[in-house]
């Protein structure tokens, strides 16, 4: 019996290359299997739903009959209220606005740009510490530690605590990576404990920052006195946890997918080595070609919505397959070709609408730095395994390890 398309998306066997399944999926832009979510896979339809105010991100609006095969286990979220990613306006708008104050324009236009020096130092330090160039696991040695270190600096986690932070982040990331062989109760307990400990640690840090504020984001969030009033401690905790988790798991995959793609396109790697300015359009094309968030599974309809002749009923669960929209030939010429010179590149890799990626400016800069420095410093890099082993997760897709070797590390 042929497997349903929904199961094929989830099937780990297809993780290394899900694009042929997406291609099939696009033949039915609004795909629905009995009892499952409505799966949207074409560019224009995804984009229109991302801007549709009849679509909610709040799980409380999900109809009781809608079954979501990716739903988080019950109790997972209970330790903290949902972050603004899972809220609708006006709560979403208020929290996102407050979080944006110390992060981006108009109030903090220099925050991300001001981290350039620090990003460069962290990248250099990690590459310096690689050791044996003959066998590198790029994920463990580079793409994972980099964004976690960055988010620690951004939030203002003291350097001596970064190691503890890494451990919690690791556990929480693993919980988003459901391994069918692991005992779900055991894993649930582990992530619950990590979340508790992280929450308690952050609560202590916030308390301390309220008394002695620094210029880090956590201090600014904890002492904010804007028109929106202060965040409650619980709001602060869930926002900080959101920044931590959303802010690094995606970047790990973007950097790793990027290096994998470059190693598969040595001509582009060579161009990047010679001219680091290529990193800017290259990262945009990467976000189209191999987006770290493959699909958005957390949307619900507040009303019956007609799309391409199909009525999606109120309370239905939606999957918006961003990675498929990014390869829609109706929108992009020759979509399966990786082309950093592409001019028309309005991809969906960072979403769109009010939930479009909050950390995008930082993620872009991190990945631009990471890829151009790797290209410059690794001598004659090559893949030891293609395709590499992937993480289980179909939503946040990326290699679990990326084993590469090179002839040496340039200084």
């Amino acid at each position, binding site marked *: 019996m042929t497997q349903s398309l929904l199961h094929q998306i989830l099937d780990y066997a297809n993780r290394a290359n899900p694009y042929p399944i997406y291609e099939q999926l696009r033949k039915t832009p609004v795909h629905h299997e009995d009892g499952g979510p409505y799966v949207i896979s074409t560019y224009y339809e995804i984009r*229109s739903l991302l801007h549709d*105010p009849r*679509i909610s991100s709040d799980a409380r609006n999900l109809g009781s009959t809608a079954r979501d095969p990716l739903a988080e286990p019950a109790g997972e979220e209970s330790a903290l209220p949902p972050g603004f990613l899972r809220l609708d*306006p006006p709560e979403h708008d208020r929290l996102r606005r407050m979080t944006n104050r110390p992060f981006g324009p108009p109030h903090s236009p220099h925050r991300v740009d001001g981290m350039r020096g620090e990003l460069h130092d962290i990248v250099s330090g990690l590459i310096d510490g690689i050791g044996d160039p003959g066998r590198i696991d790029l994920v463990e040695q580079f793409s994972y530690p980099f964004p976690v270190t960055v988010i620690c600096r951004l939030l203002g986690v003291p350097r001596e605590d970064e190691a503890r932070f890494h451990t919690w982040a690791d556990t929480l990331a693993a919980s988003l990576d459901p391994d069918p062989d692991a005992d779900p109760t055991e894993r649930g307990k582990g992530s619950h404990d990590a979340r508790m400990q992280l929450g308690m640690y952050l609560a202590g840090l916030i308390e301390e920052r309220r008394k002695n504020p620094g210029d880090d984001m956590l201090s600014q969030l904890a002492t904010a006195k804007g028109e929106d009033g202060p965040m409650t401690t619980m709001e602060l905790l869930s926002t900080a946890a959101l920044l931590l988790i959303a802010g690094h798991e995606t970047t790990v995959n973007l950097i790793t997918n990027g290096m994998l793609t470059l190693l598969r396109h040595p001509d582009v790697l060579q161009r990047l080595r010679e001219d680091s300015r290529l990193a800017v359009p290259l990262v945009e094309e990467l976000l189209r070609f191999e987006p770290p968030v493959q699909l958005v599974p957390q949307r619900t309809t507040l009303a019956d919505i007609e799309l391409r002749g199909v009525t999606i009923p109120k309370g239905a669960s939606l999957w918006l397959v961003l990675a498929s929209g990014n390869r829609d030939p109706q929108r992009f010429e020759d979509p399966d070709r990786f082309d950093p010179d592409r001019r028309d590149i309005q991809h969906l890799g960072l979403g769109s609408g009010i939930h479009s990626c909050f950390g995008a400016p930082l993620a872009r800069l991190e990945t631009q730095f990471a890829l151009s420095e790797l290209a410059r410093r690794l001598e004659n890099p090559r893949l030891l395994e293609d395709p590499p082993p992937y993480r289980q997760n179909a939503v946040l897709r990326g290699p679990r390890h990326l084993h590469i070797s090179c002839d040496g590390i340039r200084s």
Partner: protein
Amino acid sequence: MPWTYRPRRCPVLGDGSLERLKREGRIVVVGASLAGLRAAETLRAEGFAGSLTMIGDEPHEPYDRPPLSKQVLLGRAGADRTALPRLRSVDATWRLGVPATGLEMAARLVRLADGDEVPYDRLLIATGVRARPWPRAAEAELDGVLVLRGRDDGAALARRLAAGPKRVLVIGAGFTGSEIASACRERGLPVTVAERGAAPLVGALGGVVGAVAARMQREHGVDLRCGVMVTALEGDASGRVRAAHLSDGSTVETDVVIVSLGATRNTEWLAGSGLGAGPRGIACDAGCRAFDIRGIVTDDIYAAGDVARCPHPLFGYQFLSLEHWGNAVSQARIAAHNMISESTERIPHMEVPAFWSSQFGVNIKSVGVPSLGTEITISQGALDSHRFIGVYGYQGRVIGAVAFDHARWLPFYQELIETTAPFPPAFPTVDRRSDGQRPVDADFPDPSVPTHGPTVTVGGYAPADRRMTFTPAH
């Protein structure tokens, strides 16, 4: 040789004249601003290899205007730092600082102020608009009385504000006037705004939204006076403005007055040319080809940007002239494409109008034509929070929408406008509050008050004798 059937494989080639035009033709663009520049870039991008002449009355290379009433007034950017980025090389002959003074349609040439005549095969008119000056010339010449339209205006006004005037008076609370008032308050300057209508922005967005704009101004310390007119500006012995007299009998002591009474289209130079140009702009078809005064479309003269007036199929084929940035860009591209295309390859200008403004910390953005609306409903957010979406209805359909700090939702409302969705929208949305459920009168000013006089009279008896006489309004 016997006649043989040859299928027209490529109708685009026609008789070859178009290919010749693209290879060695002469295209003249009058107006070297946003629309002119983007048109020139499009011509080159689409393979026009002939000669291209750009004529502009200002001495500056094309620059961007939106920052002039925002960043420039705040002192964050110099007026000379607003040059438009070039998307590609246009390889043109630039005639800057020389206004065009006349058009000879039959001879196909443009006359310039310095006496030159520039011949063309295709002409694009993108002369835009200028600020309407204070109507009394003697008062308009007082030192300290300014308008804001061009780069030099922006620089002059920024200097005045930086010098710390004791009070600024803004006459007119449309978008430009409101943005100026916002910049003044951000700089800590006392500012009075005098508006003839019932509220700021009322002409563009109606009274319901205008009331929000009025509250925003007052909350930010603007001395907003609505329903009044400035009757006279008074200067001191040295010719500096010192006070303004208002129709309610009050007086405002001020040393800087900014006249923001809208714009006048730059069409005077076309008077007598026979082109369908007047105070309301240049009438064109949906493909940006200009009409002559007989209502016949020309095939070699095009118009784009603020000066163009095109019929729009979504809005009852009304001739819309829009002073919107995005409109200038899209019309310029369409005009440029159509100029060098066969009739079957031409494209119509069907973009949904959109504009934005930034004032008092709020991002205002609109799609469609709100001013055609008669009713409004608040579909998301709430008026009193200054964060909302207002949807405008006209005869049971959605015709426009405005967002205050909600711009990311607008593509959805644009689609409603494009698909003539029913009004009021019947569906629930995230963040729909109870006060927004019922549509109310959008409260636009009475449209029956005429703003323009007749511009054409018809004479003669027999069809062959009938003549139209073009009479510019004064």
